[in-house]
């Protein structure tokens, strides 16, 4: 089951990266970032799972799963959300100038 999680998250990570590289729409880029981030969250949470574990809230009814990845994931979710919000704000401002969110038309700077 954990191997399944890992396979899924690696596939989602690659889908996100491919979306960023191949798609020419800025919204797709941000969606790709969200996908990559979610995949990493799934990897981290799966790494803490142990078979037959219970949530890390006392009193435990059996072996508890690793709580440390959960703490990281919480932090990473909030950080990712603020990154995405910032990217969307930039896109709104840029769209005002170019009247487009297509990367092929946003070519003011090269290099």
């Amino acid at each position, binding site marked *: 089951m954990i191997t399944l999680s890992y396979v*899924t998250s690696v596939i989602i990570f690659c889908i996100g990266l491919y979306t960023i590289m191949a798609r020419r729409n800025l919204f797709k880029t941000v969606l790709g970032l969200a996908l990559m981030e979610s995949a990493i969250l799934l990897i981290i949470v799966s790494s803490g799972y142990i078979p037959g574990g219970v949530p890390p809230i006392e009193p435990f009814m059996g072996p508890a799963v690793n709580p440390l990845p959960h703490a990281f994931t919480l932090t990473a979710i909030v950080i990712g959300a603020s990154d995405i919000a910032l990217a969307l704000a930039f896109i709104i401002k840029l769209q005002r100038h170019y009247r487009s969110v297509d990367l092929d038309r946003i070519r003011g700077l090269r290099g």
Partner: protein
Amino acid sequence: MSLAFMVFLYLFLIATALVISAIGDILSAVITLSVFGILLATAFAILQAPDVALTQAVINSGIVTALFLVAFSQTERPPCYDKEEEKEE
């Protein structure tokens, strides 16, 4: 939780991710991202992480989707004249 359910859940996750990547319509992709977030929250809950599931459901499917929709509705309109923009440029 049974293995079959997990297989189904993960297949659904990959399918939604593919839809987000492939679909041309941005609005559909954003709504699919919300579905993806809820599925991921379910996966977290099954992996015995209630805190993370709660946060994921609230932030990624709630606030982030709302922000996406705001940004989308601000950019996908017929171009109309905006006085303040002229001042800025």
